[in-house]
């Protein structure tokens, strides 16, 4: 009841997506509320990443609709889609930093191409603030190849935040990282929400990440959300045995 009164920043209805005979999403409904961190859980290949790639127009749904910040994404022109993309930050699984650019250039690149009339001083200030926010103030002149996996993720998040998005999408933020770095990244996701007032969708199969970062969980199985709700509720009241076993495997009961 309380949730329904909050502003919905993302509204998905009846989303379907197939790759040839592989039906990945089969009628997905999902809402993201303003200021909320929603975690989408599911096995590898269950369509979690496909879901957020459809949101930013990297893939196209076969059926269904997505409304982001009150705007229906279907039938948008490239110009309109790009305008919407500026409000939605996407943090990639492998960070996707531009190899040929320094950390600073990675951050400046999207900024200068989308925000006109900034002075060098303003750009430098913005870059410094963001590097400070992600805990890497000394890395501006480093190349991506000189960074560790965790540092790359942080820079990837900083690059996304430079355009002041209202919604953050994290694709497997802790994949391939050691447990200590995972905790750091989880804390960063929570910090980003507090500091930058974002709403987020976190795609993961890591339950520790889910528990730390998420207000609500949405478990994707067989192309549909089988359970949506707070962490405890989803895993203690799960009727589907697969959701219980997902919990058991993650925490080695």
């Amino acid at each position: 009841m309380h949730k329904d009164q909050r502003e919905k920043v993302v509204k998905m209805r009846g989303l379907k997506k197939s790759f040839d005979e592989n039906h990945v999403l089969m009628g997905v409904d999902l809402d993201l509320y303003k200021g909320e961190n929603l975690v989408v859980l599911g096995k590898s290949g269950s369509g979690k990443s496909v879901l957020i790639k459809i949101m930013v127009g990297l893939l196209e749904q076969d059926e269904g609709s997505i409304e982001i910040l009150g705007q229906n994404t279907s039938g948008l022109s490239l110009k309109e889609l790009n305008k919407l993309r500026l409000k939605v930050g996407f943090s990639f699984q492998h960070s996707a930093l531009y190899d040929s650019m320094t950390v600073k250039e990675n951050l400046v690149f999207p900024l200068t191409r989308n925000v006109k009339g900034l002075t060098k001083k303003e750009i430098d200030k913005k870059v410094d603030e963001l590097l400070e926010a992600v805990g890497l103030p000394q890395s501006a002149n480093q190349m991506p190849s000189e960074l560790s996996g965790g540092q790359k993720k942080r820079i990837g998040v900083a690059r996304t935040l430079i355009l002041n998005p209202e919604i953050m999408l994290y694709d497997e933020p802790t994949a391939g990282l050691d447990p200590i770095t995972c905790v750091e990244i989880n804390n960063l996701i929570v910090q980003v929400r507090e500091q930058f007032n974002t709403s987020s969708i976190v795609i993961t199969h890591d339950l520790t990440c889910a528990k730390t970062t998420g207000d609500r969980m949405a478990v994707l199985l067989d192309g549909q959300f089988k359970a949506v709700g707070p962490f405890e509720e989803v895993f203690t009241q799960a009727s589907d045995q697969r959701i219980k076993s997902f919990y058991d495997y993650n925490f080695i009961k």
Partner: protein
Amino acid sequence: MSIISNDNKPVISKKIDRFFIGLASAFAFVKRFFQEVFKPPFEFKEIIRQCYEIGYRSLPLISLTGFIVGIVFTNQSRPSLSEFGATSWLPALISIAVVRAMGPLVTALIAAGKVGSGIGAEIASMKVTEQIDAMEVSAINPFKFLVVTRTVATTLMIPVLVMYTDFVALIGSFLSVNSKELVSLSTFFVQVFEAISFLDVFSSIIKSLVFGFTIGIVGCYKGYNSSKGTEGVGKAANASVVMAMFLIFIEELLSLQIVNAIRNA
């Protein structure tokens, strides 16, 4: 009418269908290049960076190759000409061969191997590591930033490299001629410039522009359309070289026919 029927059965055969689909996709790629190249914003900084990478960084290899070509071609031609007592024609023969065909062809083939494969591998690896997707979600046009800049750079730089190769090859040829026939540098170059016409130089530049465009667009196309995974990067690099070389030979043949037709008109 769609090339593929709705029930996914091949129209002719799978291989032939795939060939025509590939051809259509390549034409669409070239068409998009011409649509984007004249549209602002223009990525001048990136074009200059690419010109430096493609032009300046190719100089050592091009210099060595051009120089050797000049020496070898002169030494190979001398015995035949000396049989007729016509070794004094060597500068004229070499200049015509270098300016009309060997300079553009050798430069384009070397650039296809060095630059084309580099472009193909770089763009394919950016695709694999989602860097192209990262540009798209940041509302940046990756086609403009990656494809247009690189293709413009190769189109501009290959003619410059060709002229440089011509010069280095002629220097190599002069050293070879000078060692046996004791011809001075000025005499050598007077004979060189007497032998070549405006049409030779003009057609060589136009041909080089086409070769440059081919190397750039093929490398970008193969990289941009590579299959995902690291295997795709290697395949894209390889296919960039093979396809560019093949097209360069076809273009060389066509340009020869056109220039000969003009010359005989």
